[in-house]
């Protein structure tokens, strides 16, 4: 599971107020390189909850990866950004798309309900008594 997915998910179990952001518990994670796509990243950035993404990188022990404020469109569009490993574009790409949580869990901030991540697949299915009426 990539951090992009973590940024999109919430607990929808009964008792959750917002169910978001889910706390990230990591047992095993890895990095897989992927080709950055600037158009995709520019389109996705406005949808990202930045503080939650920064918190997720911190939970992984990568406090230096992302700055406090999201990059601007100009930074993402800067010439040569895709080739420069230290650029804002490449850091965003790494945070959203190259980090994979293999094993771990997503924990609801309101109810502590634990959604396991196994073999990279988060299991968001509810038990029958957790579905809201």
């Amino acid at each position, binding site marked *: 599971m990539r951090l*992009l997915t973590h940024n999109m998910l919430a607990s929808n179990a009964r008792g959750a107020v917002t169910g*978001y952001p889910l706390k990230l518990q990591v047992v095993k994670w890895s990095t897989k390189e992927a080709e950055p*796509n600037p158009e995709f990243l520019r389109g996705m950035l406005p949808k990202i909850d930045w503080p939650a993404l920064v918190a997720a990188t911190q939970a992984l022990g990568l406090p230096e990866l992302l700055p406090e404020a999201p990059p601007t469109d100009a930074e993402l569009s800067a010439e040569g950004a895709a080739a420069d490993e230290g650029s804002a574009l490449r850091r965003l790409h790494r945070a959203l798309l190259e980090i994979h949580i293999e094993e771990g869990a997503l924990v609801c901030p309101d109810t502590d309900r634990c959604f396991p991540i196994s073999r990279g*697949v*988060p*299991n968001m299915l*509810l038990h*029958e008594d957790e579905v809201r009426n």
Partner: protein
Amino acid sequence: MWYLCVFYHRLLDYRRPEVQSLAELFGGPGAGDAVEWRMPENHHVDSPFHLVRLPGDERLAAQIANRSLLVKGIYELWGQGTTYEELERVVMAYPEERKLPYLTPESTFKIVVDSFGKGRVNLKKPDHKFFVMETDDYGCNNGLPPVAQRTVFFGREVGAADRHLLPTYQLKSRKYIGPTAMDAEMAFLMANQGLARPGKLVYDPFVGTGSILVAAAHFGAMTMGADIDIRVVRDGRGPDCNIWSNFEQYKLPEPLCILRADNNVPPWRPGLKEVFDAIICDPPYGVRAGGRKSGGRKLIKGTVAPYTVPDEKRDSHIPSTAPYSLAECVHDLLHLAARMLVMGGRLVFFFPVVREDGVANPAKYPEHPCFRLLASCEQILSMRYSRVLLTMVKVGPYTGEVEKAAEERRREFRENHHKWMEEGNLHSAVFSPADQAAAAADGKPAIDRDSKPKYRGKYV
């Protein structure tokens, strides 16, 4: 410019919408609606020969044809006639300035079927390909009505479908498939209807073994998928035979995310909307594989007391699920799309139709205030049942009112679960025996097998 567009003689209902979607994909917003169609004189609408007017220049026509699955060729029509003599006269009269660029002594050409003109012939790698096509030889095997008038066309090929990708992606050589995996040709058609291309994000909420996303990824789109069945999405048939291996097999980038989730109880965070460029899927309608949703035994009121999972079993508990009615499944899908698609994004999905008097009734296709129906392509599967590929575009924003209306409808589905299961039970509508008793009273069989159209039309 008007072109001759010759289609493969299959999936007849899918052919024009594919060309229009690809016009939109390569020509930009509005280009799909700008496409115009005519039939050549004396041609049945199911004939492979269509005349199409495409916006833009010839490059656009070539892009459309080359990306398509169902376009055998798009041709600059140099002439047509009812005899070869007439054709020759018409072609001779076609403006020289349109012909000469392709008839220079330096360029090579090839004429398919017949020879024409002068110059060097190169049958393997010609610069230009010319086609002579006749409509006279319709036997009784192609399923079309008899030809009223022989027509001969002569044209220069502008572009043609590359169907070589079909053997590469055919299901029988794919490592991991399930019983309802989408066949490769249909999956590519769906990806074309969804305008899949690089930089765009495609989501399939009923991902199964990932066959639709494989097609979208082939066209360069980023993909995401979800399924309620953990065995399908996580385990597959082992470490080298699962969703991920299907993408590896074709050297495609793996999906951004595969998750286990129930589209009836979607796990998206509050406030998240407009993230997907297309949602493309084949919802479980309950004919081959029934849909399931969360809630399980709790919904069977009166038979079983509300079930509570004991605390010590929560980690290993496998939740029971309840059947998911077609109506509720489609409602949830349209609501998901209204919320999660960008404006102008596309929803492409199969919708089942029980045929009444041998036809599908478009009045029964689902509607939603946020969507405009662009195309409906029927594929007849049995005497009683068709599936229709619906292509919709998001034209209205996801407002508080839309959200509130969906919430009320959702409550209605939950409170009347049994009623909806009975009314929306497609499996029994399709498979129950025809009412023989009522028919016997009329003195004729319930289904008149001879009434099946003599040409194949939508059966192809």
